C-alpha cells in the first residue's frame, strides 16, 4: 500500500503546487487583516464607541485563540470522514470569500454598527477556515509523497506561512506607495480606501487556486481506506478520547508544536513589532527588514525538511528551539544596540538643524543607515533560520505520528493550539511583561524562552527520532 503513495515527479510537483498555493493564499488572507489592524480599526471599530471597540477586541482574540482550534476540530473531523481534497477546498473558499467580503464592507460611518458586526463575523470565518487548511494540505502532500522524501515534499507546505506573510507585507507596501505620485497623498488614500485592495485581490488568487485544486485527485491513502470501508466513524472520539491516540496528541502539543509556535511568532511577528515599537524604526524599514530576512531564510524550510529525511525530525526541531532559547536575548539586545547607535548619530546631526529636530520629535521614529539596516536584516534572518529549523520538518513529524483514518483531526488540533494559542499569546504576554518590568526592554522574551525551554525538555525526553516510514496504517 505504501507504494501507492509514491508519485511520479511530475505528479508530486502538481500536488505540492496545488496544496502550497492554496495554503499560501490562506495565510496571506489571514495576515492582511492583522497587518492592517490599525487602519481597519479606524474604519470599523472607532475607539470613541465602546461597543465597537469591544467588537474589535473580540475580533482580535476570538479569531486566533478560540475559533482557529475549533476550525481544526470541525474541518479535521470532516477531512477524516469525507476526504482531504474537498475539505481543504472548502476551507479555501470560506477564507477567500470572507477576505474578499471584508474589502467590500462599508465603513462604520456609513452603516453604523452593522459594519463592525459584519467584519467580526467575517474575521471569525477566516479563523475557522485557517484552522482547517493546514492539516489538510500537509496530510494531502504527505499521503502522496514517497516515504524517503516525505520531509522534503511537506516542507514546501511549511514555506507557505512565511511566504504568506511575505506576500501580504509586499502587497501592502506596494499598494501604500502606488496610489499617488506624492508619498503623503498615497498613504492618505491608502488609509482612506486603498487598504481594501489587498482584500479584494484575494478573490483572484483564490479563484486560481480553487481551479487548480479542483483538478487534483483525492489522497491515495484516504481513497484506499474509503474504498475498503475502513474510515473512522467518529474521528473526534478516536483522536481525543482513546488513550492510545490522546497521549500522542498531547506529546505532539507539548513536545513539538508548543515550542515551534513561540519560535515562529517571535522570529517573525515579535521581531517586526520589536523593531517598530522598541527600536523605534519607521513603518517601511521595519517591514522591509523582515521582507529581506524572509526572502533569504525561506529556502531553509526545504533544506531542513529534506535533511530531516536523512537524520530524523526530532533533533533538527530541538536544535532550533535550543538555539532560540540560548540566543534570543543577545540577538534582540543587539537590535536595540544597533538602533540606539544609529539614533545617537542622528541626534548629533539633528542638533545642527532646528527643523529636523522638530521633525524627529513629531515622528518619534528613526531610520537607520544602510550598514545598520543590513546588520538588522542579518539578525532577523538568524531568527527566521530558527523558525525554519523547527517548522521545516514538523509537517512530516506530525503526519507520521497518527494513523490515516484520524490523521487530519489528530494533527490539526495540536498544531493550531501550538501556533494559534501558545504562539499567538507571544505579543500579549510580551507586552504585559514590558508594562510590569519597565527597565528591561528584553523582558518580553522570557515567555518564548520559557515555553520553548519546556518544550525542548519534553521533546528530548519523550519523542522518538525514529521516522515512521509506513504511514498507510
Amino acid at each position, binding site marked *: 500500500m505504501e507504494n501507492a503513495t509514491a508519485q511520479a515527479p511530475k505528479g508530486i510537483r502538481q500536488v505540492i503546487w496545488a496544496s502550497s498555493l492554496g495554503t499560501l493564499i490562506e495565510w496571506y488572507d489571514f495576515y492582511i487583516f492583522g497587518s492592517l489592524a490599525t487602519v481597519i480599526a479606524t474604519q470599523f471599530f472607532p475607539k470613541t464607541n465602546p461597543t465597537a*471597540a469591544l467588537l474589535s*477586541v473580540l475580533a482580535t482574540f476570538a479569531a486566533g*485563540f478560540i475559533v482557529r482550534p475549533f476550525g481544526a476540530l470541525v474541518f479535521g473531523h470532516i477531512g477524516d470522514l469525507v476526504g482531504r481534497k474537498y475539505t481543504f477546498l472548502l476551507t479555501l473558499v470560506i477564507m477567500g470569500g470572507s477576505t474578499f467580503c471584508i474589502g467590500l464592507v462599508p465603513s462604520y460611518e456609513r452603516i453604523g454598527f452593522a459594519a463592525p458586526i459584519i467584519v467580526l463575523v467575517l474575521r471569525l470565518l477566516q479563523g475557522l477556515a485557517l484552522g482547517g487548511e493546514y492539516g489538510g494540505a500537509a496530510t494531502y502532500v504527505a499521503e502522496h509523497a514517497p516515504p524517503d522524501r516525505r520531509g522534503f515534499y511537506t516542507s514546501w507546505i511549511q514555506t507557505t506561512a512565511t511566504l504568506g506573510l511575505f506576500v501580504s507585507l509586499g502587497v501592502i507596501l506596494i499598494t501604500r506607495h502606488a496610489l499617488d505620485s506624492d508619498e503623503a497623498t498615497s498613504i492618505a488614500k491608502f488609509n482612506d480606501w486603498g487598504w481594501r485592495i489587498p482584500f479584494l485581490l484575494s478573490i483572484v488568487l483564490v479563484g486560481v487556486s480553487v481551479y487548480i485544486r479542483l483538478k487534483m485527485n483525492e489522497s491515495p491513502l484516504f481513497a484506499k481506506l474509503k474504498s475498503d470501508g475502513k474510515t473512522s466513524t467518529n474521528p473526534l472520539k478516536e483522536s481525543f478520547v482513546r488513550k492510545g491516540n490522546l497521549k500522542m496528541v498531547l506529546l505532539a502539543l*507539548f513536545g513539538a508544536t508548543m515550542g515551534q509556535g513561540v519560535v515562529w511568532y517571535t522570529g517573525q511577528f515579535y521581531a517586526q513589532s520589536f523593531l517598530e515599537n522598541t527600536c523605534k524604526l519607521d513603518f517601511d524599514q521595519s517591514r522591509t527588514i523582515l521582507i529581506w530576512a524572509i526572502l533569504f531564510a525561506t529556502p531553509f524550510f526545504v533544506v531542513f525538511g529534506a535533511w530531516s529525511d536523512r537524520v530524523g525530525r526530532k533533533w533538527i526541531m530541538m536544535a532550533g528551539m535550543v538555539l532560540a532559547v540560548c540566543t534570543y536575548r543577545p540577538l534582540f539586545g543587539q537590535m536595540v544596540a544597533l538602533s540606539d547607535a544609529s539614533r545617537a548619530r542622528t541626534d548629533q546631526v539633528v542638533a545642527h538643524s532646528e527643523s529636523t529636530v522638530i521633525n524627529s520629535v513629531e515622528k518619534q521614529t528613526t531610520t537607520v543607515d544602510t550598514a545598520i539596516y543590513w546588520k538588522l536584516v542579518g539578525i532577523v534572518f538568524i531568527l527566521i533560520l530558527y523558525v525554519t529549523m523547527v517548522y521545516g520538518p514538523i509537517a512530516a513529524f506530525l503526519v507520521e505520528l497518527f*494513523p490515516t483514518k484520524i490523521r487530519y483531526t489528530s494533527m490539526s488540533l495540536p498544531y493550531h493550539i501550538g501556533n494559534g494559542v501558545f504562539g499567538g499569546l507571544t505579543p500579549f504576554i510580551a507586552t504585559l511583561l514590558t508594562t510590569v518590568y519597565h527597565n528591561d526592554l528584553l523582558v518580553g522574551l522570557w515567555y518564548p524562552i520559557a515555553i520553548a525551554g519546556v518544550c525542548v525538555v519534553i521533546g528530548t525526553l519523550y519523542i522518538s527520532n525514529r521516522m*515512521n516510514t509506513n504511514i498507510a496504517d
Partner: protein
Amino acid sequence: MDLLKRAFGLLWMLLAFVALIAVVLMAQAEISRKPTTDVWIQWGVFVGICIPIAIALFIFGLFALKGEYDRLPTRSSDR
C-alpha cells in the same frame, strides 16, 4: 531513561497547577487594575483557553508518570 520520563511526569503535573494559578492571579490583577469590559473579555478568553491546556498538561504528566511514554506505538494496532 524510563525512570527519568516517569519522574518528570510529576513535574508536568505540578507545572500545570502552577501555570493555571499564575494565569488566574494575573487575570485578577489586570482586571482589578483596569476593570473595563474589553479587559474582562481579553482575560476571560486567556483563562478560558488556559484551563483546558492546563488540564491537558496534567493528563500528559499523569500519562508520563504511569509509563505510557516508555514505549511509543509504531502502528495503529498498538494504540
